[in-house]
């Protein structure tokens, strides 16, 4: 059997993770349910009046998305590190950064993209007009990509730590704040009928930066976590 090329490697990693996700589909759905539940809390806590909810709707959707993506990170690397797969990856001689990026991309497909898909539903429940759906979806699609990569760096750093989930939140949330600002800002501007090109471009720029530099940090962090 010949060693796969770089693209073949990426395809193998993605196919494997997708297959695992299909077998454990409940774990994929849980963050999504969490996302819906968190957005339900806000009307209960603040007010059922749609006028009031509309004002803070973009913020609610974005905070809930951030928390849901954080929740999903817990299972990103841990099973593979615990059963020794990750150790084999680091020893395989293949570029670890590319493999981890592929893994993170799959994670985004399973945890980020579903949020994008149900965002119009949640947005409507919070009184956001249908005209902002596209902007909400685009901002979430770009933003959750950045969240996945920053989160993967944090997950790789904390995977060897016992009870690392609180620590993970502590490390990752401050780094993710710019994504939240631009994401919520874009939706807010769209609601007021203003141009959203600025924040969306910045979200895309951040995503590109994180895609290009993030895997290096992920791989370095993973090597530290796996050794010993």
């Amino acid at each position, binding site marked *: 059997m010949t060693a796969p090329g770089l693209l073949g490697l990426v395809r193998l990693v993605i196919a494997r993770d997708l297959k695992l996700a299909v077998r454990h589909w409940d774990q994929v759905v849980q963050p999504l349910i969490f996302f819906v539940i968190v957005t339900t809390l806000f009307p209960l806590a603040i007010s059922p009046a749609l006028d009031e909810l509309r004002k803070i709707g973009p913020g609610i959707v974005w905070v809930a998305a951030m928390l849901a993506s954080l929740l999903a990170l817990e299972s990103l690397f841990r099973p593979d590190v615990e059963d020794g797969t990750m150790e084999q990856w680091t020893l395989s001689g293949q570029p670890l950064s590319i493999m981890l990026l592929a893994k993170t991309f799959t994670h985004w497909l399973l945890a980020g993209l579903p949020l994008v898909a149900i965002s119009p539903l949640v947005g409507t429940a919070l009184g956001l007009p249908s005209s902002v759906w596209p902007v909400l979806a685009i901002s979430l699609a770009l933003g959750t990509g950045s969240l996945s990569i920053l989160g993967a760096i944090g997950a790789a*750093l904390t995977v*060897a730590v016992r009870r690392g989930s609180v620590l993970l939140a*502590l490390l990752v949330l*401050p*780094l993710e704040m710019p994504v939240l600002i*631009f994401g919520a800002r874009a939706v807010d501007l769209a609601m007021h009928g203003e141009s959203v090109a600025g924040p969306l471009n910045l979200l895309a720029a951040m995503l590109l930066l994180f895609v290009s530099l993030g895997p290096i940090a992920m791989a370095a962090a993973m090597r530290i976590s796996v050794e*010993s």
Partner: protein
Amino acid sequence: MWLWFHKLSSPPHAYRTAGRLRPWFFWPAILLLLIGTYGGLVLAPEDYQQKDAFRILYVHVPSASMSLMVYVALAVAAAIGLIWRMKLAHAFAAACAPVGAWFTVLTLVTGSIYGKPMWGTWWEWDPRLTSELILLFLYLGYMALRASFDDTQRADRASAILAIVGVVNVPIVKYSVVWWNSLHQGPSISKLAAPSIDPSMLWPLLVMMLGFVLYFAAVMCDRIRGEILRRERNASWLSEIAVGT
């Protein structure tokens, strides 16, 4: 140059050097802080608009600049430690974090004390306040990650990566937070060509800033000695020193 580099990275040498340097940082720092405090509180004229309340800036501005400077120093030290596997650089980074966090807290506290009479509120979601608060979170995350490893070397390397990721993020955080409407007055001393602050008010501030830097250096001498002691607690050179004195 390389000889010096290697010599410095040997713990016993660094331990002695830090001990020898400490008074040279500490006493000038105290002197400058006293001069700066006197200059700031007594000699500097009252502001025509903000009255005496502006005087807190003699603590606020130096600690704000230190809070950022220490984070950059921490990240640079962490990168050096990661790239050249220099343990002393990791020790320096570890010793930096609590000091930097306290400078950040001091900035936030003095800022809100200043904000109460000036803006009529203790806290305002203003870009600079918010980015300073996020900086505090970064420090806390760094310290939390470091504390969660039992093995010092792994703690060193894992937290170094976090520090580097954080320092790449600091400008992004900074500029993203500037998106809000700002209450905070623009920077008044970075414009060196035409400072918008009167020289009689400026000089105590510069003295205070230098004093803060020297004070940080003195504290770091102590903290790095403590860090070396903790890391080398089983080394033979330490028992020689302990027996010698």
